[in-house]
């Protein structure tokens, strides 16, 4: 299957090379490599990458973006090798599956002389990438906590639903806890809901049975938030000013915010569109007269009714 794909890719590039050599071999080739979308956030990323490819290739006819997605770290490592040997890319935009197993493959691409842009997940060795584009996990926790402080007062109770036990989850959680410290908000308990609707529903059901008085929920993620809302409605506790704060920027949630939903009044951005930011910046590394190399950390914007429209992509799967 993979073999077939690779052969297909080789055949196609072979043809392109024949056609290309006649016209102009001067195209700037940029490989974009990321995991095969298996959950909604990644599917959104895939969509935004495809949109950016269309837009950038229209804008710059001499730029050729090659999107490749891989189902596991080993496949991604081989995909990177192919991008160098078959396509001879001038730059690589990569969202690594895992840091450790992909550090060496990316280093090899770097040795071929290509520009390297790393997205979202850092490599395990510093100094390989020219540009690093990422969302801001601690900031997501901090912004969520700051919003909680505007809505709650001393002595109010909240519960927290966390993601999958990972560094990302810890960064968000620790920053949230640090920000609310000393304000008098009681965190009744925090449990892992694995960035998943079903787990969000069940954990919230149990929180509702356990705690009679909850004023707000930090769900950290939009999928969890959807499960939480279903549990609140089932228990009939969706009234009396209770609110839920999620995160990421799922289109259904953003739509709700635009429509003035009170149960999920805001969202904190951790956008899958960051891949498009990375692709834009990488093209600018070849096109702009300004320097591009460095670290580009996106803000964790608080999405409210006022600015929701600019973050709403109805056609994206996320």
């Amino acid at each position, binding site marked *: 299957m993979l073999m077939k794909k690779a052969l297909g890719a080789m055949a196609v590039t072979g043809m392109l090379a024949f056609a290309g050599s006649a016209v102009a071999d001067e195209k700037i080739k940029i490989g974009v490599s990321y995991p095969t*979308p298996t*959950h909604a956030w990644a*599917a959104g990323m895939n969509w935004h990458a495809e949109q950016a490819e269309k837009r950038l290739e229209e804008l710059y006819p001499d730029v050729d973006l090659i999107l490749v997605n891989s189902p596991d770290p080993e496949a991604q490592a081989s995909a990177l090798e192919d991008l160098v040997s078959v396509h001879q890319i001038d730059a690589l935009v990569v969202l690594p599956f895992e840091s450790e197993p992909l550090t060496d493959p990316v280093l090899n691409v770097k040795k071929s002389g290509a520009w390297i842009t790393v997205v979202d997940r850092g490599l395990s060795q510093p100094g390989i990438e020219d540009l690093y584009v990422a969302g801001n996990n601690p900031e997501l926790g901090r912004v969520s906590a700051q919003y909680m402080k505007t809505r709650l007062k001393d002595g109010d109770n909240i519960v927290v639903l966390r993601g999958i036990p990972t560094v990302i989850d810890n960064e968000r959680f620790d920053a949230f806890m640090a920000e609310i410290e000393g304000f008098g908000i009681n965190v009744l308990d925090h449990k*892992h809901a694995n960035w998943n609707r079903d787990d969000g529903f*069940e954990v919230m059901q*149990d929180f509702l*049975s356990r705690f009679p008085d909850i004023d707000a929920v930090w769900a950290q993620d939009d999928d969890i938030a959807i499960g939480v809302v279903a549990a609140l409605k089932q228990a009939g506790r969706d009234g009396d000013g209770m609110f839920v704060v999620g995160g990421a920027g799922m289109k259904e949630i953003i739509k709700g915010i635009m429509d003035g939903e009170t149960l999920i009044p805001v969202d904190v951005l951790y956008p899958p569109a960051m891949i498009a930011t990375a692709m834009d910046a990488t093209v600018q590394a070849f096109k702009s007269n300004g320097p591009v190399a460095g670290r580009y950390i996106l803000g964790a914007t608080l999405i409210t009714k006022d600015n929701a429209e600019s973050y709403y992509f109805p056609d994206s799967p996320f």
Partner: protein
Amino acid sequence: MVTSSTETTAKRSSIDFKTIGPALALLILCIIGFLLNPSFVSEGNLTNLLTRSAFIGIIAVGATFVITAGGIDLSVGSMAAAISGVMIIIMNNAVDTMGTGVATVLLGCGCAVVLGIGAGWINGALTTKGKIEAFIVTLGTMGIYRSLVTYFADGGTLSLNFDIRGTYRPVYYDSFLGLPYPVWVFIGVAICGWLLLNRTAFGRYCTAIGSNEAVARYSAINVDRVKTLTYVIQGLCVSFATIIYVPRLGSASASTGVLWELEAIAAVIIGGTVLKGGYGRIGGTILGALILTTIGNILNFTDLISNYLNGTMQGLIIIVAVLLQRSDWKLGKSK
């Protein structure tokens, strides 16, 4: 009939512990839950618990047949996800022609049943006619069904049309005589399963094939047909579980039903069914499903244990529950 009754007499002295073991484990868990937080036994929480165990419980009733007949089905979680996905797509597409009423929901449910039976039959036919080990067949279909739902959802989440959700929602959230509908489905499936396994020739054939397939074949049992039927029953159970799962959140994605197969198998084994086949207990399976759900519930009710150790607690309790009913302990005798 004759063989099964002699077997019962031979095992009589240890059979008590086999029956009581899972019930005892569940009772102990409930007492722990109550001591940790008295609201554990509140009506709301008990209803949640029963409703939640319905998914795994119904699937595990099907798995009891497969395992009793010496097979295994690893594809049930993925199958549930794929059926939910197709069901949602069918109902969304039927809105234009059939509206958002009960007819559309029934169409969706009907398709789910057909798909479940079909998927089960594929597993069964590949195992018996194709002569491939059940583990490999269902490992393969597990991957196929899981990637199909990812493909249908375009990597994201399939969501049910908002108006149909309104029609369909009561199937999960409403109650009859104080018990939510999913619990009634669970009870119905459990009773049918118990009758089928313990009171029919088919049930005895399953047990006979599981204990010794060759002997069953010489005894003129149509082994291939019975084994295929166990997978069809499993598929049917998965579609029932799906029918009550979809109205809960009205969505399906690649993360739907992940690891349900292992939970179902664990429920079956905790309940006293033997993994290598030949001995099955539907009652035990039900208790096993309840035990698994209760563990998760209790862990959410306490902050005494680090979140990171949830898996450890679950593993320990599963092993202790099986240990309780397998070991001969003091009352056990030789044999």
